[in-house]
């Protein structure tokens, strides 16, 4: 039996329990402006780039600042110009600890979640930092 009130244990929980399993994306034909508008509309800090139904890249808030504005690109340029195509993914069954370790090693704040080779969601360091509180959501079984 699992004892309650052991916060460190939450790091051994599979990431599948704390992701929305929804991913907001734009197609690879989109411009930087269109991608930025969608990120603002949904108040999200990263967006996936799709080729057909396949995720081929990711763009974060930081990329928008650094690669789009900082490097003086036009808002009409292709989103592909600023996306990261070397995708870092973690399996949905991996533990939170493994996901954090990989994020630390790769020095990234966003990580894509894959299930049987398909990308199904995304999580951020902020989401994971919020974990102990989220865990309480399902910890409480009232009697």
């Amino acid at each position: 039996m699992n004892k309650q009130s052991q916060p460190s244990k939450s790091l051994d929980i599979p990431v599948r329990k704390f992701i929305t399993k929804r991913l907001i994306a734009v197609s690879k034909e989109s411009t930087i402006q269109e991608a930025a508008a969608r990120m603002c509309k949904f108040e999200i800090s990263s967006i996936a780039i799709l080729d057909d139904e396949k995720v081929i890249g990711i763009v974060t808030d930081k990329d928008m600042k650094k690669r789009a504005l900082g490097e003086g690109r036009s808002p009409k340029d292709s989103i592909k110009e600023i996306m990261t195509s070397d995708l870092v993914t973690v399996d949905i069954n991996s533990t939170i600890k493994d996901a954090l370790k990989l994020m630390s090693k790769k020095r990234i704040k966003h990580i894509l979640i894959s299930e049987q080779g398909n990308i199904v969601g995304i999580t951020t360091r902020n989401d994971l930092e919020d974990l102990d509180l989220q865990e309480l959501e399902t910890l409480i079984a009232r009697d």
Partner: protein
Amino acid sequence: MKIFHFSDIHAGSKKHFREENLLHIIDEINSGDFDLAIFTGDATNEGQRHEYEKASKLLKTIEVPLVSIPGNHDARSGGIKLFEEYIGQQNGVYEFKDAVIIYVNSAIGDSNDGRVGRVKFNMLKKALNEHSDKAIKILAIHHHILPIPMSGRERNVLANAGDLLDLIQRSDVDLVVSGHRHYPNVYEVENTVFINAGTASSEKTRYGDVNSYCIIDIDEKHKKVTTKRLNGENSVHDFPRTSKRIFSDFGNHAFRAIQLSNTYFSDTSSFLSQHYDEAVKSIKSLDPDLLIHCGGIVKEGIPRNYDSAIGQLKKLEYPMVFTPAARDINYMGYHLFNRHFGDLDQNYSEGDILFQGLSTPQYDSSIGVVGETERKALLKRLNNASCEFRSVFLHHNIIPIPHSREKGLLEDAGDLLRELVDAEIDLVLTGTSYHAYATRVGKTVIANVNSISSAYQRSRFGNSFNLIDIYEKAIVISEINSFWGKRRLLGIWERK
């Protein structure tokens, strides 16, 4: 993988037990090509030794691996100890090839109610974490988690059904198999299929139905559930293993609604005026087409609270529709609601979009009811509407809400949920239990909203309201914190 699911045999009861039907079912199990069988409780009628002897003798003739759990009838007369003696463990984990079946006893001695207590709940969580990578995850529990149609008063449910539903969804459980109510029923909730097998051999069926059981075929791409009735009638539900998760093409934006509840207008500290004022600012910046108030407008239905409501709501100059909670109609509330806000059942339509209100509270009661006449009238109105997008808003929840005890449900939630899902209503909005939650049942998205400005709320996210964006191809629902305006996504669903 092929599974035989049966339930509620009620063996040994001379009055209710139809042994010939159970023998027929066992014969079908033994002559089929099933990998295993799952029995979801009520082996006996009164938990008596002679009933357990009978049940055990019959169940032992099943020639495939069998997973069994107790039901509320097995826990009668202290019979739960006999369950272990005659049938097997009450709780456990059974691994079979690439599948795991986690089974949990939800019975309470001498009560028809159900419960998964804290220790067992944590055991279940731990088992789901440990078996996260199994290709097929199945939960077996006697009491149903979602309300069942044709079962009249929606009682004897699991007290913490909302927490369980949330855990099931987060853990991506593929199948939840149950019994209890003697009426077969199948729902797909996101990617989890909830199956109630009905009763295999009890004479006590619902609405003159016959005995039934289910056959489940599950492979990499599909979950197929065949409900078989002993009169030869079969119904088949075929579900894909996963639904759409990546959204890039939303189509044109069609409509924006704000869903709110439990404003709690009053001159007491229960009404958080600063939260309300901050939420008003957020709502104005979101510029919605419509505000939908799902009840709990005032703390109690007395004149000065209604006066306060009128003043506060003037801050929001948008079209608004209301549906009452019990607190809105208590005391003078019936008259005041009608005088200030109009009809109990309000509606709003614009172009192809319809929002239809449904009044559910009862005077001086936290339990809601629709009633058969009203339900028929509602469905007739919805089915006659020529709108492409149909939504219903009411106060009481029709699916369990996390973090709350399942007590404020509608008396007839089982029938209402079934009929709204069967009619493929696009969206159902509720406003009770003080916790936001949104999910999809069949093709119907169901969203509950937390309290916007009541001191009574249950979520660590804080007081909030829901933002609903209807696009040509998707419905997007987010929860927005009343005070800070922080947003979190509750879900995105493809429009049917």
